[in-house]
């Protein structure tokens, strides 16, 4: 076994967790004694975790990803000292606070106040500490008016808020988060995230468990993929997520190796970009149009017709993206804990690298407008029925102070302003690539204005999505269209579509 590595806050060394289940149910002492004498006691071993070795450094945000039943919660429980490892060595350096299953320690008959004291005691805090933190806890949970009522009268959202407020009352040195980012409304979720950001800035190490790739990818810098109790991948979050993602989708047939090879895959039918203004269509779906000044970050519109069905969604698919991913329009799979299944979202992003967790200070909402495709209606009540064609349009204007807007069937779904705090000090690129990548593409092209390929980058999540999403009639406009113009676009295209059919 290796020695303690002083930079590591969490260290697991060949850890295994085994449940010993009797083959036949032994119901009592008498049976136990009889069977033991007869040597008929047979156990079945269930190894929930095996050969788990990894470490987490101080201040990291570490992700654990995997399907249901892979052992993620078991791993967290070992960290939280709920389970003692059957084999191996566990080192946790620092005070550990679990956010496992919020509200689990609540007693329904007691009031909110009494439950706060109870839960603080469950976490090992003294009464004096609870007295000091009491007001800030109910403030954070926004339950000042309800604190004297019994918990059984609370809604699930209220319980969750209280649970989070209590569990995060004192900044821990190690924070364990188990899928709790899904509770509460989005405003409260943001509050939770802000508090976690604060902790991270003060040196807390955070471990997040999720089966949602998006969550892990957004927040974590390193990750671990767990399957059937064993580590399948460990390392940089992008690498791990890619491997995990391949589990849900077959990998591309032939990864592209050189820039020349990459260029050869690209369909040569590039539209002639208009001199100024105007709109034009992309005729080839399944091609990627290299970065050119067809569209620029200052303004533009893209519209396309989309139809989706029931199938399991695929990987991320970019419709447009600027070279630095500041402006992105994409369709992505997303696990919805509320619905308990995978759905897709179509999102328009107004800036910002995904690695928000590292750069985010203060409170604000992530600059994306998104709609869940499988949820029925969008947030603003715009109906998104399966099996029907919908016109999706996205506009952006006026970087760096401007807005991106998402229109569905001519109606404005939402808008967000570009947030320069996500810049990370990087220079803004002027180029936007557009189109859907073909299935065999596994990289990203960087090209100059003149069309010469500079670089072919591997390891991108952008790939064409075939599963149940159809796209047609992609149309680009070098200007950012207004509401009225979008609506007339809708009217015009619908009329034309009806004529075609």
């Amino acid at each position, binding site marked *: *076994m290796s020695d*303690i590595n*002083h*930079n590591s806050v969490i260290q697991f060394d060949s850890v295994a967790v085994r*449940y*010993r289940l009797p083959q036949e149910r032994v*119901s*009592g*002492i008498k049976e*136990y004694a009889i069977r033991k004498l007869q040597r008929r006691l047979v156990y079945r071993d269930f190894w929930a975790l095996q050969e788990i070795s990894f470490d987490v450094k*101080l201040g990291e945000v570490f992700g654990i990803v995997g399907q249901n039943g892979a052992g993620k919660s078991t791993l967290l*429980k070992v960290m*939280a*000292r*709920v*389970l*003692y*490892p059957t084999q*191996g*060595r*566990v*080192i*946790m*350096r*620092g*005070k*550990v606070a*679990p956010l*496992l*299953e919020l509200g*689990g*320690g609540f*007693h329904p*008959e*007691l009031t909110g106040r009494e439950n706060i*004291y*109870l839960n*603080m*005691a*469950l*976490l*090992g*805090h*003294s*009464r004096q500490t*609870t007295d000091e933190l009491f007001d800030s806890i109910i403030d954070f949970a926004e339950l000042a008016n309800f604190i004297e009522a019994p918990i059984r009268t609370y809604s699930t959202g209220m319980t969750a808020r209280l649970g989070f407020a209590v569990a995060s009352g004192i900044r821990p*040195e190690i924070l364990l988060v188990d899928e709790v980012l899904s509770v509460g409304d989005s405003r409260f979720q943001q509050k939770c995230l802000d508090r976690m950001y604060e902790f991270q800035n003060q*040196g807390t190490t955070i471990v997040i468990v999720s089966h949602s790739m998006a969550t892990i990818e957004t927040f974590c810098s390193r990750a671990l993929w767990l399957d059937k109790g064993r580590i399948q991948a460990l390392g940089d979050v992008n690498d791990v997520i890619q491997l995990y993602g391949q589990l849900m989708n077959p990998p591309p047939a032939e990864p592209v190796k050189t820039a020349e090879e990459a260029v050869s895959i690209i369909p040569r039918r590039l539209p002639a970009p208009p001199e100024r203004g105007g709109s034009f269509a992309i005729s080839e779906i399944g091609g990627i149009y290299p970065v050119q000044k067809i569209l620029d970050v200052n303004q533009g519109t893209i519209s396309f017709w989309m139809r989706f069905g029931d199938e399991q969604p695929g990987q991320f698919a970019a419709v447009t993206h600027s070279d630095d991913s500041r402006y992105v329009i994409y369709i992505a799979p997303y696990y919805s804990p509320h619905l308990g299944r995978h759905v897709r979202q179509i999102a328009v992003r107004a800036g910002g690298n995904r690695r928000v967790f590292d750069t985010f200070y203060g409170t604000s909402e992530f600059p994306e407008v998104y709609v869940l495709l499988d949820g029925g209606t969008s947030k603003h009540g715009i109906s998104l029925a399966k099996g029907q064609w919908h016109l999706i349009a996205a506009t952006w204007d006026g970087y760096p102070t401007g807005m991106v807007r998402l229109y569905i069937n001519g109606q404005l779904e939402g808008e967000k302003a570009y947030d320069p705090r996500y810049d990370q000090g990087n220079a803004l690129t002027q180029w936007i690539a557009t189109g859907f990548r073909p299935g065999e593409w596994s990289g990203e092209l960087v090209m100059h204005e003149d069309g010469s390929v500079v670089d072919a980058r591997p390891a991108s999540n952008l790939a064409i999505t075939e599963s149940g999403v159809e796209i047609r009639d992609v149309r680009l406009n070098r200007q950012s269209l207004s509401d009225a113009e979008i609506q007339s676009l809708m009217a015009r295209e619908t009329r034309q579509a009806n004529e075609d059919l």
Partner: protein
Amino acid sequence: MAEMNVKPPTISEIYDTLRRKPAVVEETLAVYRYRELIRQFVVRNLKTRYKRSLLGIVWTMLNPLLTMIVLTLVFSNIFRFSVENYPVYILSGLTAWNFFSSATNTAMGEMVWSGSLLSRIYVPKSVFAISAVGTSLVNLLIALIPLLIISIILGVKITPAVLVMPVAVLFLVMFALGIGLLLSAAAVYFADMIPVYEVFLMLWMYATPIIYPIEIIPENLTWIFKLNPMYYLLTLFREPLYNGVIPDPSYWLIGGGCACVALTLGALVFTARAQEYAYRI
């Protein structure tokens, strides 16, 4: 290569499964840290018991009183000739016995039903037994009030000997805690522990001179009854109040010895297996 020797920030606690103190020491330290939780459990037990009942705390006092009245009426004609102030005799015995039986039963019950808690959050496993003993202790102290009142009413002479009763209570607490820990450990593994213990407890109660004085046992059989640790512990509790005398040193020695042995055994066995409980419950 010259490097800045950066000290890692001081960390408040380290959990290392390879470098651990003896289980009993760890558990004791953890119990101290979680003392507020134990206090909360005791308060919760008392509250949930009394919050919705009309009679409230008065019921704790009434219950043994009613038992005493019934038993007195039933047995007074059999034993009256040999036992003075029979009601006080019974009541003091019952009070101590109720403490022991409720402490051990609750300790086991809380442990068995703690599964939902233990599967989610770490608490030192012995808090259930400790809080059960604590709750029963509070009930015992409350029950002393009617005991004293009845004693005075029935004309029992209260002597300074009652000042040794706290020691007797201490021994009872130690014994109950030890047995409670042993039972909790067993109950995790055997589902039928609770009903089995209830039967065993009933037999144990009849084997202890609570309702009857030990004098009625034939001489050649007395030694069997004197193997019962509760006989000594009960006598230590009852004698100072009922007879107004301090029991023989031999009783203190044996009683104290049993209490220490039970507590030590219980603590060692329980903490040795503590890390497995979360797997089982």
